[in-house]
């Protein structure tokens, strides 16, 4: 049952992802991105990671897509016009292939041959314990990263005036 749902959702994600990069309308692209992120949330639910799934919905579908749409609206590109093609397809292909290669190698080397048994749902309690006793430093670094993003945006917004 789980495998069947996983297969259907994964197929939908791949379809939406392919449409995302091939669509000619940027706003449609944003909609397909939403579908991909929602599919990922369902996958998290299947892996018993309830909290992560709803964080995915809250932060990615709620906030990141909004940010992306605002970024899109900042550009002068009219919807559906391909004049915004920057002719860097080969370079983009090299970069994306490199990223794919590096991440898949890392995942392969780290988790090769391991099986994960999902017995009971990961609760917010275990997550909280892990963050606030074991991974305190990464947690605090997250705030520094967010601060850097915020300061960067303020500097960019100020320059216009």
């Amino acid at each position, binding site marked *: *049952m*789980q495998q069947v749902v996983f297969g259907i959702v994964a197929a939908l994600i791949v379809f939406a992802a392919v449409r995302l990069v091939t669509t000619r309308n940027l706003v449609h692209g944003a909609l397909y991105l939403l579908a991909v992120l929602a599919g990922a949330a369902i996958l998290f*639910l299947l892996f*018993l990671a*309830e*909290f992560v799934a709803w*964080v995915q919905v*809250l*932060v990615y579908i*709620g*906030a*990141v897509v*909004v*940010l992306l749409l*605002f*970024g899109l*609206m*900042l*550009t*002068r*590109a*009219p*919807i559906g016009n391909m004049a915004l093609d920057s002719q860097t397809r080969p370079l983009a292909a090299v970069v994306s292939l490199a990223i794919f290669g590096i991440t898949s190698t890392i995942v392969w080397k780290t988790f090769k041959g391991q099986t994960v048994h999902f017995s009971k*749902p990961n609760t*917010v*309690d275990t*997550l*909280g*314990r892990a*963050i*606030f*006793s074991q991974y*305190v430093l990464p*947690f*605090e670094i*997250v*705030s*520094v990263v*967010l*601060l850097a*993003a*915020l*300061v960067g*945006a*303020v500097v*960019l*917004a*100020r320059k*216009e005036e």
Partner: protein
Amino acid sequence: MPKGYFGEYLTLAFFAGMMLLLVAGTLGLNKLVSPKVHRDEKYLTYECGVDPVGGGWSQTQIRYYLFGLLFVVFDVEAVFLFPWAVVFDKLGTAAFVEMVIFIGILALGLAYAWRKKVLEWL
């Protein structure tokens, strides 16, 4: 009603499916039985009965982006508050101090934006 972790989400999926079916059914039925008369005017954007001028695309101000980013930053902060609130009574002072540092660093960013007067809507 099915019980357990997957059972509950199965109920949710059932209702989501019924919702989609309802919308698709009513819209599909409407499309099936409604008369179709093609007129170019019908496909114009409705603007209080006046013919629209120009395109639908305009460049927005960067201000909107800044508020969008502020939303993302504090959304992420809110997400961390949930597990913090759950384990707070078990970890006590240490967790409290950690969260105060976290929010303090983010508050610095908000204070910076405030001082630079980008939060004012001119």
